[in-house]
Structures are given as C-alpha cells and as structure tokens.
C-alpha cells in the first residue's frame, strides 16, 4: 500500500482579481485554466487526469469540466458536503482517498469563483442569486432544509457572513478580554506577507494597525479589515500516488493526514448553531477534529513549521489557533499580539501568501496551494527547511484540515 500513499504533485492558479473583474472568460473556463496549469506544474498531461474533486456549492460540475478538458475517462467525480470554503481540505482528502484506494490515479481538486458573473458573497441580501424584493409579510414555504433553518435567522436581518461570525467572536471577547487591536494584528501580519506575493490582490498596499482600527465597522466587532476579500479567480491541486509521483517534475508533498467534521448540533455554523454546547460556542469548533488530525499524522502543534489557516474573519483565525493547540483556550489574543504569526521572527509563520485577507478568497483552496509551495521552498515568504505544514478550511462552521509533509 505504501507506494499508493497520496501526494500533492502540482499546483496552479489563474490570475486573482477583485470580485467582478473577470468577465472575459466564464467561471468554468477559468477552472479549466487553473487545472491545466496545475497539471503542467506537475509535469503531467491533461490526459493523465482521471479524477476531479470539489466541495459544496460548486457551480462547475465535474462532468462538464471533464468534457471541457477532453478527459479520456472520468473515473472519480466527487463533491464534499461541508459548506463553502469548509470543504477545501476535505476535497483534498477525498482525492487522497481515491488515489490510495485505487479508484483513480490522478485527481485534481479545483475551485473557481467569479462573483461578478453570479452574485457577490458579501452582500447583505438573502442567500440566493435572486435580487431582494420586499417579500409578503407572511411565513413563506421553505424549499430546502437550509431555508427552513435560515427561517430562524433571516427575519432578524442575519444574512451576511460578517455578522454571523461576529457572534462567536464577540462571545470570545466577553469571556477572555480579546480586543479589536489583537484581531488587527492578524490582518496586518497577513498583509505584510502579501507584499512578496505577485499573485496577491492586496500586495503592495500597506496596512498599519491604525488603518485597521480606522476601517469602517461592518458588523461589530468586525471592521472592514477583519473580513476576507471577495475575488474572482481559480486554483487547483493535483494529487497522485507516491509511486506515480517519483518521476514527476516537482518534489512531491505528502498528505500526512486529513480530517473533516462538525461537533454536535453545528449545522450551518453561526447562522443556525445558537444551541451548540456552551463550551464550544466561542471556539472555532475544530478542537476535536484537530486532536484526531494530530493523532492520525503522528505530529503535534509543536512540529508545525508553517501554517495556512483559513481566514474568512480574523476572530475565526484566533479561535482556530486555540483549537489546534498553538496556544491555550482564551490566549489567542496575546498569542497573535506577540507576533507569533509573522513570517520573519514568528514562532508559527502563518498565511505566508497573505491569506484570504490579502492574497485572495478562493474558498481556501489557495491555502492548500500555498501549503504545497511552502514545503517545496517555492513560497514568496519561504520558511527555511519547513517540513510540516498545517492547512485548515474554515472554522466556526463544519470544517476540514490537512497536514502536509516533506520528507
């Protein structure tokens, strides 16, 4: 079995832009572009691809991508249930499972987002592509479990991710004294990293802590600079077996362990999880998953040389750092304030590409791309001799994670 151990052998992406700026090419064509670049990076041919894996809410169905790319045979077409960006690492996990169990030889994980061609995620309008019309003031029939559940959020104006994820963050502030300035350190650090990255949408645009503190309030405690970007762009990751990886173009990066999941009652995260256990409300809800992940990989938080932490909102980064054991519960604020996440001089260099706060928001698959580059020594903020990288996909919502390793 060991020769079938799954490895990441190729990564690639399209250009990343502000949301709505890619209009000359369709979202699915952009996915194909990223897939072809990742395959080329691996030293493979598109004809070698026999599996495609993606995650929830993908408009670019594998069957059409396979046809567009002219794949000789699609043996594995797979989608993760975890919502939104929560599934990026889980999609890598599914690709790894397919390779390890022989269901496919070369599986590409992809994500393409062109928010201008569909709808803008950050808009405080109902979660659908329909324009907001004043509805009749009566109870409406829900056409899905999701909408029945959102019936207990929407009438209160809870439609915007920035507001939903503010709820556990505010609770964390109440319990532990976490401050907005501490959250600002996360934004400023990731912005600093993005300046080295030619792909980063916000690269070259400096941000100070004062800039963070004077940015407009969106949903208290979230200021504008606590919220991830909204972008158009696509990226892809190629997974194959150790045996196949030996002859390819780049140093293969091993997928040491993967996990996905949600604690009891978590449903759609802070839009609907008001009744999860008190002990996990002001957390990223990843602690149990993290413990399973460390055990499976045979490494612990102290072994991590570089981390790519899903950064939809700064508070969720802070709570994940506690969940994954990089600091104690409640000490995320002082931990980030100490400079721990900085590429230069930090104990845990994090989001060396700039993250979703400063590189781009490609539903976190770009964090897997960067994790791979950081272990290859190809990152624009390289961490010397990095051997173990943690990549996470979302928090405060059902989520997933992988640990990557370089031999």
């Amino acid at each position, binding site marked *: 079995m060991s020769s079938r151990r799954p490895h990441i052998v190729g990564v690639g992406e399209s250009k990343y832009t502000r949301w709505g700026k890619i209009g000359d090419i369709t979202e699915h064509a952009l996915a194909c572009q990223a897939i072809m670049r990742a395959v080329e990076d691996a030293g493979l041919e598109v004809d070698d691809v026999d599996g495609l894996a993606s995650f929830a809410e993908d408009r670019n169905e594998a069957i059409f991508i396979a046809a567009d790319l002219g794949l000789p045979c699609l043996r594995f077409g797979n989608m993760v249930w975890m919502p939104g960006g929560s599934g990026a690492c889980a999609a890598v996990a599914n690709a790894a499972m397919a390779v390890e169990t022989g269901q496919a030889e070369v599986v590409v994980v992809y994500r393409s987002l062109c928010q201008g061609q569909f709808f803008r995620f950050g808009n405080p*309008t109902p979660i659908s592509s329909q324009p907001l019309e004043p*509805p009749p003031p009566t109870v409406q029939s829900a056409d899905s479990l999701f*909408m029945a559940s959102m019936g*207990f959020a929407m009438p209160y*104006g809870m439609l915007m991710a920035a507001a939903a994820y503010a709820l556990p963050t505010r609770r964390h502030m109440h319990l532990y004294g976490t401050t907005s300035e501490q959250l600002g350190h996360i934004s400023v650090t990731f912005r600093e990293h993005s300046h080295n990255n030619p792909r980063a949408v916000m690269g070259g645009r400096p941000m100070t802590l004062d800039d963070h503190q004077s940015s407009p309030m969106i949903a208290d405690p979230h200021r504008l600079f606590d919220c991830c970007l909204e972008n158009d762009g696509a990226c892809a990751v190629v997974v194959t077996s150790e045996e196949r990886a030996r002859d390819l173009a780049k140093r293969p990066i091993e997928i040491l362990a993967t996990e996905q999941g949600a604690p009891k009652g978590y449903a759609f995260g802070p839009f609907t999880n008001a009744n999860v256990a008190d002990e996990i409300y002001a957390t990223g809800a990843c602690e149990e998953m993290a413990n399973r992940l460390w055990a499976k990989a045979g490494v612990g938080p102290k072994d991590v040389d570089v981390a790519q932490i899903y950064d939809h909102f700064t508070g969720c980064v802070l709570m994940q750092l506690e969940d994954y054991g990089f600091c104690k519960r409640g000490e995320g604020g002082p931990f980030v304030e100490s400079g721990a996440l900085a590429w230069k001089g930090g104990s845990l260099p994090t989001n060396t590409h700039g993250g979703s706060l400063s590189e781009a928001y490609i539903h976190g698959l770009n964090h897997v791309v960067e994790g791979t580059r950081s272990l290859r020594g190809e990152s624009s903020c390289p961490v010397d001799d990095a051997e173990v990288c943690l990549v996470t996909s979302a928090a405060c919502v059902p989520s997933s994670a992988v640990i990557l390793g370089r031999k």
Partner: protein
Amino acid sequence: MSERFFPDGMPSPTADTTTLPWWEAASEHRLVVQRCTACQHTRHPPMPICPECRSSEADWQELSGRGEIYTYTIVHRPIAADQEVPFVIAIVALEGSGGIRMMTNVVGIAADQVRVGMPVEVVWEDMSKDLAIPRFRPI
C-alpha cells in the same frame, strides 16, 4: 398593531412543516420551545427527531419571554430599504427553556449600550396581521 422597529421589507421567515408550528405560535404572540415528550429535552430550531433520545414525539412549551443576552453583533449595513442602522442581532438565552438560546434582535436601546449578560424580555413586532416577529428589549 404593535410598535414597529423594522421596515416592511425585512425578509420573512421561511418554514417547513416541522418549523411552521413555532411561527403559528408566534403569530399569537406566544414564545415557545419544542420539547421532547419522551425525555423532556428542549430544542430550537424545531427538529423532527429529538437529538438526545431520537423520539419523534414532541410538544410546545410556552416560555416567560424573559432572557439574557449571550452574544450579539451590531450590524452597520441595512438589509431592507429604509432600515435604520446600526441594528443589533443577538443570541438570547431563554429563561425556563432548558438552556435554549435563540437568534433575535435587541431593540429599544442604543446599539452601543448593549452588553453580554443584559436581561431582556420579548417584544412582539406585528409585521402584518399574519406575521409577528419576536424581538427583545432590556428589562
């Protein structure tokens, strides 16, 4: 009609047959929580099966309407036309509910005065003759 806090254009609830009875109680200004008749465990939003004992038998327990703010956010972007901002979305822990919390709005207080732990009580906002939404205000 009751006092109004939000404009007509606010999104209406969406419900299925499991959750509709909760909204029917709300239309009568009754704040209820679903309770398993087998093990007495309460749950919200309403669900078809008790997540503790898996019984599908349940009834509706009427609450006092008092509670305490568990967490909140102050939203600075309007959802509907003519909506005043900022407005407060909160999670309120409901008295006598077996530990149930619900999402709601806090009204009748300046947003920057809202605090975790603040005692609140329900205030019903009639959006129409068929639809009442429970908001909360400080006691």
